[in-house]
């Protein structure tokens, strides 16, 4: 329910308590068109940009739009069970949540934050840090950081995209890789005592889910926060997600003019609806 974000008044009043969970099947309809909530980057980064760019002053736009474009790609990928939302304060920080639907980590709801280097796309790969350190070979048990680098040893612009990082963050819960772990304990258990590993995973999932309704770790108007289902708050937002934004519903009457038969490239090749005579 974060649609038409910018349109409604100051960011402070309304954004400070974003209690809408990303329910509903897809988060996509509400976000993309109106309210891609990207904030400017605090950036020495633009200096790198402007170095190869022509107008130093446009550098920030390039960075911001690069990130917006990355976000757009994420949306286009329709990654299953993954939701992300750039923060209000910086496009370099994205809030996310992964829903695990089966496997060892089934029912896990893991909140995480993506940190994107400010010289994107020319720097290192983005970092993914789980709010609560998940018990997993590739997740640091203290910081909660996911080992992303192993999958993206060198970040290559045009080839690597943030959606791939997100995809990777999801994959690790379905396909456990024990090579060069960040959490050696988990690997040991995985190899030696799988039952214990499994129960630790279950505990970890429970722990994460028990913190689900906590205040977001980072105080940001666009941080993802969960609350128990409250029809007064959520019903409307849910409705909205399943509808097109109103602006588009009553869009121009003569929109979408086309009389081209699919598969044809001839104008007016579509047959008229036959008249009942």
């Amino acid at each position: 329910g974060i649609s038409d974000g910018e349109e409604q008044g100051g960011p402070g009043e309304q954004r400070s308590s974003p209690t809408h969970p990303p329910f509903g099947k897809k988060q996509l309809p509400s976000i993309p068109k109106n309210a891609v909530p990207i904030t400017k980057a605090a950036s020495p980064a633009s200096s790198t940009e402007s170095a190869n760019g022509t107008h130093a002053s446009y550098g920030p736009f390039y960075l911001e739009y690069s990130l917006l474009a990355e976000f757009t790609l994420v949306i286009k990928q329709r990654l299953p069970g993954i939701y992300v939302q750039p923060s209000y304060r910086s496009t370099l920080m994205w809030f996310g949540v992964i829903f695990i639907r089966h496997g060892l980590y089934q029912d896990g709801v893991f909140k995480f934050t993506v940190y994107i280097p400010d010289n994107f796309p020319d720097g290192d790969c983005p970092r993914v840090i789980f709010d609560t350190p998940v018990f997993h070979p590739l997740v640091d048990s203290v910081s909660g950081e996911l080992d992303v680098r192993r999958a993206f040893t060198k970040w290559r612009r045009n080839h690597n995209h943030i959606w791939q990082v997100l995809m990777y963050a999801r994959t690790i819960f379905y396909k456990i890789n024990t090579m060069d772990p960040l959490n050696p304990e988990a690997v040991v258990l995985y190899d030696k005592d799988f039952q214990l590993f499994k129960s630790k995973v279950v505990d970890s999932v429970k722990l994460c889910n028990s913190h689900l309704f906590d205040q977001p770790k980072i105080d940001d108007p666009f941080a993802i926060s969960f609350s128990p289902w409250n029809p007064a708050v959520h019903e409307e937002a849910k409705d909205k997600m399943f509808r097109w934004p109103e602006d588009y519903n009553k869009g121009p009457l003569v929109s979408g003019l086309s009389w081209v038969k699919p598969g044809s490239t001839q104008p007016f090749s579509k047959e008229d609806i036959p008249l009942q005579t």
Partner: protein
Amino acid sequence: MSWLSRLNPRGPGTRTGRHAAPTSPCTADPETCLMVFENHWRQVSRVLKQRESSVGGYADDLTAVRNHTDQMLCLLAEERPAGGDIDSPAVGPILKMVVAENILDELVQWHVRRGLDPDSQLELLKLFEMLIGQSHQPLLLHSAVLQPLLNLLGACVDPQLGSPPALESSLVLLLNQVCVCMAKETAVLELIFRCGLVQQGPTNLLIFSLLVPFIHRDGSLGQQARDALLLVMATSASNHSVARHIAENSYFCPVLATGLSALYSSLPRKIEVRGDDWHALRREDWMAVSSLVLFMNSLEFCNAVVQVAHPLVRCQLLDYLHNGFLVPVMGPALHKSSVDEMIASTAYLDLFLRSITETSLLKTFLRFILLHRHDNDTILDTLLTRISSNSRLCMVSLSLFKTLLSLNCEDLMLQLVLRYLLPCTHVMLSQRRAVRETDLYGKSADKFLSLIPECCRITPAPSSERDDELAFWGKVLGSPTSESPVHPRPSTPSRLALFIRQQSSGGQAIPPSSGSENAPSSPRGSVSSPLSPDSPVHQLPDTSEGETGYLEYLRDARKGIELCSWACRDWSAPYDGENPSPNSVPPPPPPPTSHPSLNMVQEHFSIMDRPQQRGAVVAAARAEWSSSDRDSGEWDVTISKNCISLTPRSKKRSLLPSSIPLQSSSSASVSTEMTSAVETVSQHSHSAPHTALYNGMGQVELTDSVDEKMEVKKVKRDSDVNNRMVESGMNGSMGIGSVDYNDFHVGSTMKSSQVQVKPHLQHQTSVPTSTQECLESESQRLSPVPALTETSTVPCDSRGPESVERLIEELLERAPSEPLTGDSKCQGISIEAFHQELRELEERVRERRVLSRSSEESSREYRTAPTPSLTDEDCLPVETEQHSSETKTESYATGVFSPARPLGPPLAQPYTGPFITVLFSKLESMMQNSLYVNILLTGVVFQLACYPQPLLRSFLLNTNMVFQPSVKSLIQVLGSVKNRIEAFAATHEDFPAMLRKARRFLVARGKLDWSDSPMGVPTLRRSDSLIKSRKPSLGDLILRHTNSPTRARHAAQLALAHVRDGGQSLHSALFRGGAASGASGLEKQAEALRVKNAVYCAVIFSEFLKELAALAQEHSVALPFPPSQGAEE
């Protein structure tokens, strides 16, 4: 169906409560009323029965019957239903009696038998109208009421002759009432239909056929008739037999369609315009032209009928519109040979397209434009070639294409652009995959921005100017100093509004970022660091006050793309280079090798002949001179009416000659003679084709409903007011227009005008008198400096010495217009040669500058007298005539021999289509285009670049794409313009100052236009929001570059202030000083025009690049819309 509510039954609300309160108290009790009624009826029937009696009682009888009938019908009208439920109210006693005894029928029959005089007809019609309109019961459901009504109507109206004029208003009103009832009680329609069937045989829907003749009537009568007909249409929409009857047995559709033809033929052939920036008919333009109002009413009616009518009727109407209006009337009209008529018909077509809201009607128009062939060319082809023509026609055509593009119609885009891109032959094979790529990292945007000429990056202005500008921009976006640099600000375009709001309220809306401490540190430094100096919001105002617009461009681009991709969501294919497959598409039509209709509008001059070409430059200067002349004097600022708010006070201009000692008398007289000559010509131009066009329509009875007086009068009145302005404003094209009439219609008149001008020409340039020779040699003689010494030595008032630079500066301030040479490029003159030519001219001017300084030293100041300007203006039609005839003969040669480039590369090579070609070539000549052409042109390209289809998007905006060598890319075209601008700036040291002024003028002017006319285009009643969304009004256009309300207001005020303090006026007098050099006025004009267009071009060009960059960026973050439900089966 909203128009229903608009139809206000005459009685104010008397019947609204009919169903709601069926038992509401009556004034008198029903019993008594019935008794009174019966009493009256007894009296009447006594008279009716003695009908055979003597003639002597005639008048008395009639009076008695009338009086009683009045009373009876009043009682009947006032009677309320006698209880019953809402759905089937019980019939009141009076009505029961009327039905039982068939009273009304007897009454009417009595009248008919004794012969209805007009007076009685009128009386009866009024009585029935009162009865139907005010009755509390659904009377028409009873055939005892309906039948006599139909009989009466049949008796009043002769099927052949129609109704007597005296009866018309009562008749239409009555019919209207009947239709209102019909709309309320659908059964009435069926009843009328069946009643009629018995009586009138095939033409049974009498009510309907009676209304048809009034379709195109103006005033409230026509409106009532149309409303009534619409009600019938709506009511019959679900009644197949009635619809069929309307389609098969009534003249409704043919009358409607051919009526449009008739009305079209009475439209002004030529559109008199207010300013040189005029390019489209807006509501305020046509509301004053009654013939156009009439047409628009009927078109609107067609639109409404299409909206509500039964499919049978709709299809028939659309057929008739296509075959009875578009093909026989619009087609030829669009192909008229005179430029004036082309302008008019193009503007009309544009207006019609903007006014239509019904999809199927729009389809009919589009089908006509895309598929109908007139002389082997589709209408679209013809319209396309007009873009390459000159000034006004080009602008009107661009405006039309802007309208077309705004329809987001797949069929149109396919024909216009996509079919040429579909085969993907324009890209290297290896690049085909890249078609779908988006500009992820802003590389394309960066490329576009890098093309902004160095000289256009704004440098700080001198302090005096800077104050203004700071105030200007500071208020608009907030200067960097005025805000607190505590928190990072949202910077995406969509947040700018927010940002501004916060500022104006003064509060800090962003909560303290306490989160920054809690947050795990970002890999590189704190995320929530204090505002960096690189923040786009801050940086831009910092670097240059003029470049704040980028955020708004981003926002505009986002809006444009979003709207467009929403509108394209139901297209049949994504056009992404794979679907439709490049291999399966039919090859697009090859480029035209030589295009006759293209040559027709050529207004250029061959480069091969040097002197002639020079003549062209001079001619351009003259055209410019005359057109800008009106900028020179006083300016009227009208905010309320005009969209072009700065209008020259033309009256003042005509006073000018008196202040000139030499030549004044002769030139003044010549000028008036010439004016009158031109006026005669234009009058002819109205009448001649007018009658000719009437051939197209066969409906004789229609002619009387068409206001034949037409608009000659009206148009003339306008031209009285701003005669000079209009004539000069029309510039070259108008001259050509006259020529065409000269050729075809009014030869003698024109001849005389030539003769009248001759002596004057002679006087000025001392060329031989022989008409033809004079004209031919003129171009050669005019440009060399010595030839004009006489004019230039005219002394004028003794103002202080002024430099040429100052002159140019002042020239710059004037509104630009199109030089005749402006488009020469497109027709095949090499721009380089043209450039060369101009450079020579420039050289000469520079020499003269030196000269002028020396002459200043000798303190002999001259000022270019207004005289030459006047005379030039007068010469103009002759000038242009000469050129046009020249062009005409030449164009043959061009077609056959000349290597001049036609609209596209040779056949074998990939061809991106005529639209792209013409747009690109027009872009390439941006430096020579007038400001307004450039504004429109860039607007069209902008709109084209909003389309999300990867084929089109990649072709226009992906600067990394590698095209086939023969395919010119947008970036190449822009690159060449950039080079030209830079070359130009390098030769003008005062370029920065001129640029600043031009920019300021544009901003101010844009504001004024905008605040002036918030409503752009005519709207049909039912969907203004839509039409507004695709309005291309001028204000809108100029404002594309700066459209925030606050900014607009400030700018408008500022501009007004400028205009008011005369000396510093934005439009200070032309040639006030600085002409002291030995230079000829003409060459100075040429130079001035060139400078002006170039400087304005530099401004527009820079802004355009930002727009394109913004588009490239926004495309990369845009998401496609899924198709709407039920769009694809």
